[in-house]
């Protein structure tokens, strides 16, 4: 279909998303967001943590993503995500609890390893909360 992109998000556990969309925006691991429209030049790039935005019939939707790899072609965007979830898969109270827990761990962290782990968990919970409550500032 002209003017459309096939967005596929797969994790080792499952195929999270697969449908035709008009636009995609995903976080890269190295510098900010990557916006993709149909007929984009082929690109391969690592994916960071954040939200994947896409427009479907004028409506904006989003998924969470935690690391992975993207392959972009003129008519498709394939994201091999380490982890990814749709908004309805997110347990908001759980994410809030995780955030508090991570903040607590961050204060108590003794070693650098603990610190990194707490930081990662904090980031993940913030992304989930953002996804479940409001899309945040990364508009098209």
């Amino acid at each position, binding site marked *: 279909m002209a003017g459309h992109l096939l967005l596929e998000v797969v994790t080792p556990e499952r195929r999270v998303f697969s449908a035709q969309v008009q636009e995609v925006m995903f976080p890269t691991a190295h510098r900010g967001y990557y916006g993709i429209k149909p007929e984009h*030049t082929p690109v*391969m790039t690592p994916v960071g943590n954040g939200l994947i935005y896409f427009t479907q019939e004028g409506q904006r939707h989003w998924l969470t993503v935690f690391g992975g790899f993207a*392959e972009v072609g003129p008519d498709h965007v394939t994201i091999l995500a380490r982890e990814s979830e749709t908004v309805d898969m997110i347990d908001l109270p759980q994410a809030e609890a995780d955030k508090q827990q991570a903040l607590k761990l961050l204060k108590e962290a003794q070693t650098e390893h603990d610190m990194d782990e707490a930081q990662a968990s904090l980031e993940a919970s913030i992304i989930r909360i953002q996804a479940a409550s409001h899309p945040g500032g990364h508009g098209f």
Partner: protein
Amino acid sequence: MASLQDIRRRIRSVKNTQQVTKAMKMISAVKLRKSQERLVSLRPYASKMKEVVYRVVASVKGRPEIHLGPSATALISPREEKAIRVVVVASDKGLCGGFNANILKRAALFLQENGDKRVKVDVVGKRAFDWARRRGLTLESEYLGVPLPGLQKVTREIADAAAQQYEAGEIDALYVVYNHFQSAVAQEPTVVKVFPVELPVQPMDAKAEIPHLLEPDPNTILETLLPRFVETEVLRTLLESSASEHGARMAAMDKASGNAGEMIAKLTLTMNKIRQAAITNQIIEIVSGANA
């Protein structure tokens, strides 16, 4: 000839066995479905990952102007194999037909073929562990009784350890010997080389005329991609083996239930014959007594 009592007892015992095999078959069917689901959901990821890795590797191969870091260089450039590491994947439990026998035969053959190299062995599954101990192999690591969700952790440990050894020059390749899941009733003992990455002889696809932009640079991509690739490949083999095991057990138990049924039919027939013979004998005795 066995007495009526004996045969009745035997029928009962065979019936009990049949109940056990039927139950095992049912359990295996459920487990097979679970393993198969995991495998089926991983396969698209794994094949896509392979495709991407091949593409990136193909685009940097033979271009010395692209600077690659040590780990990326190591994982894609094969060197002479003097020492290798091999993971032998079998099951924890028996009663699954030729599943373990076939894979261990393949593993033994593999060791024989690579007799001139130093070989480090990892085993997954109790049967593989017993096999290795019988052969007097020293093991790098062993994973026994790992449940399905635990496979990911096993994978990470094996992949990390192997990658470290590879970078340190202690091993030159990582192989996995496992049962490839073809269908619920067919498994194929398979040896796969996980790394260094070997490009397929045929180019992946002809339609990729436009080379991909590699952002930010090929080295960063390979360095993030390759460890995940190795992990995915190892995880895939473990899942393949798990699904194969349950498939093999289901087939074996189905066969066993069938055999038990046949045996019961045969014994029942014999039992009826003996009973009839006894009745006939009694009638003859009564009739001849009356005649006299």
